[in-house]
């Protein structure tokens, strides 16, 4: 290096990430060039002048103060999928029930009869299917433990690639009618043979009674009956772009499926928010001897990485299941509410305006503490167990901005970007999920608050 280069790059000498080898080049130059050496020494002296001569450290109790405050604050926020109500509603049950079934079927097992399917794969999968169905014939119950990258209290279909794994458990007793239960921290759903019961224990929690096929879980329902699903799947594969392979390895039969994200992704917001809305790879392992499903792993594929989103860790067949599993005991301050009743309430929702105007009215209602309008736009709000806590935290908020609405993924409603400032000064910048897929075209807030 000559003197000009040395002067230009002198800052490198004060960069810890620069290698000693490069720094040695400078020092070699300094041996023969007193001007550059003096410049370096003067810079070093100047830097030393700026170095604090006292050590500033945090007070001994700062950590405790932060932890104490954080403990009091608890968990007030929910992300956009933290819907007050489940996604499917009786008012639009016919459409959504069919859609839900289709969705279920597209998601996990869209592999059979696909045009691009190699014949040998087809034979292997058909054989596997037949054996798996037969294997399930005599099974009385199934119990599963699986982990999903998601958030506690969130809808069962919600996934989050950056979240930790949340434990899920599933019980199913086969019969006529069958009974089942799926639970994770903050959310439990039970089918007791007559109705579905969903309990969400968060601050805006709720307890809802739906009918037997109430659609209160989406894709996860497929895990309730692995053999039957494989059979049903054969009829629905034309809708999905999937590649798959079946290989035998030791005592395992491994079925790998690669499926494309489904939905409208001109806006990418909903990409990877649920398994159907993701490019994913599903890995099923069946026991070659018993032909029963042994494990399932689902991976989300992005441009430069693959993230495991679901892992089935335990599956047991014919494990005794107590009837008490099919009853949810509610806290004293929470009551079961029929889902129909909430949504047939004439006051729910507002028609004749846009989603953006709905969002504006919704936040204006929070600003003025107009709880009647909040409840109208977010049905069930008033009767939520933690309503006073939520009112206190969010009441009086001010609107900073409301953006242009957009659609994304498979969500039937629209997302409206918003930014609000809470009384505490906290800024919330999220997307409100609003839908009007009902007969009267009434908008109501489905999540994102």
């Amino acid at each position, binding site marked *: 290096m000559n003197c000009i280069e040395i002067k230009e790059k002198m800052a490198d000498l004060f960069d810890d990430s620069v290698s000693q080898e490069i720094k040695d080049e400078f020092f070699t130059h300094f041996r023969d060039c007193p001007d550059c050496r003096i410049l370096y020494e003067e810079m070093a002296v100047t830097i030393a002048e700026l170095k*604090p001569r006292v050590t500033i450290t945090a007070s001994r109790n700062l950590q405790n103060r932060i932890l104490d405050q954080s*403990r009091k604050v608890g968990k007030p926020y929910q992300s956009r999928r933290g819907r007050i109500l489940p996604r499917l509603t009786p008012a639009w049950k016919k459409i959504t029930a069919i859609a839900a079934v289709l969705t279920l079927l597209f998601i996990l097992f869209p592999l059979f009869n696909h045009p691009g399917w190699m014949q040998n794969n087809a034979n292997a999968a058909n054989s596997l299917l037949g054996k798996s169905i037969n294997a399930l014939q005599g099974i009385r119950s199934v119990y599963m433990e699986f982990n999903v990258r998601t958030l506690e209290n969130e809808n069962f279909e919600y996934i989050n690639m950056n979240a930790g794994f949340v434990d899920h458990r599933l019980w199913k007793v086969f019969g006529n009618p069958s009974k089942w239960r799926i639970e994770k921290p903050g959310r439990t759903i039970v089918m007791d043979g007559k109705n579905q019961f969903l309990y969400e224990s968060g601050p805006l929690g709720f307890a809802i009674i739906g009918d037997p096929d109430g659609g209160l879980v989406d894709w996860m329902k497929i895990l309730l009956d692995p053999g039957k699903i494989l059979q049903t799947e054969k009829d629905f594969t034309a809708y999905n772009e999937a590649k798959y392979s079946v290989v035998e390895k030791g005592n395992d039969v491994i079925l790998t499926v690669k499926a494309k994200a489904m939905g409208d992704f001109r806006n990418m917001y909903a990409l990877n928010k649920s398994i159907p809305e993701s490019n994913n790879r599903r890995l099923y392992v069946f026991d070659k001897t018993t032909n029963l499903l042994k494990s399932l792993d689902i991976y989300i594929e992005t441009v430069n990485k693959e993230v495991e989103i679901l892992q089935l860790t335990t599956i047991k067949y014919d494990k005794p299941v107590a009837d008490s599993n099919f009853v949810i005991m509610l806290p004293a301050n929470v009551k079961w509410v029929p889902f129909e009743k909430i949504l047939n309430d004439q006051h729910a929702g507002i028609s004749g305006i846009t989603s953006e105007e709905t969002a504006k009215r919704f936040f204006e209602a929070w600003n003025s503490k107009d709880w009647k309008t909040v409840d109208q736009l977010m049905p069930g709000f008033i009767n939520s167990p933690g309503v006073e806590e939520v009112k206190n935290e969010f009441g009086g908020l001010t609107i900073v901005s409301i953006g242009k609405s957009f659609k994304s993924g498979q969500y039937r409603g629209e997302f409206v970007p918003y930014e609000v400032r809470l009384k505490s000064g906290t800024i919330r910048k999220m997307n409100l999920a609003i839908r009007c897929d009902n007969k009267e075209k009434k908008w109501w807030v489905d999540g994102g608050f």
Partner: protein
Amino acid sequence: MTENPEKFPQTLPDLGEFVKKNQNKLVRHAFFRLGNREEAEDVVQEVMIRMYQEKERKQHIEQATSYVFRMVFNSCLDRLRKKTRNNFEPLNGRETLRSDESNRETEIIATEEFLRIDHLLNSIPSEQAEVLRLRIIDEMSFVEIAEIMKLPVTTIKSRFSYGITKLRNKLTCQKEVKNELH
């Protein structure tokens, strides 16, 4: 700070570890911005609590330490702007003293040190002072500074060199003046 992905803590025990690991660095940064230890700790506390409140929405963050540092950095700037708007002196000598008498002397020395460094940095253009502050006081690498300031590393290095040169010239002039007076 940028080598390995580091997620923001999602549980209180993890938050405790995170605070323990970063609190000194963050408080030091805030102190040499605001000149007041209590205020510096308030900023760090507010940022940590706010981050934890929003932890679910912060899960995508890959470099939690850098992110929190930037939050503290911005909060300090906000406070300074508010003080400027309110024509409020950034440093009030009495405010810097903690109620604990045994710490009084330490706090006075710290305050004097803040004033000395602040005076030096105020003598050069603010964008250069900013880089010197982050590199020398906060001991951040040029790459980390570039991330925080959203500027190319080359720009950061230039500002560093220009800043040091200007400061060196000022210090040299001061020495010459002092020598003449003596």
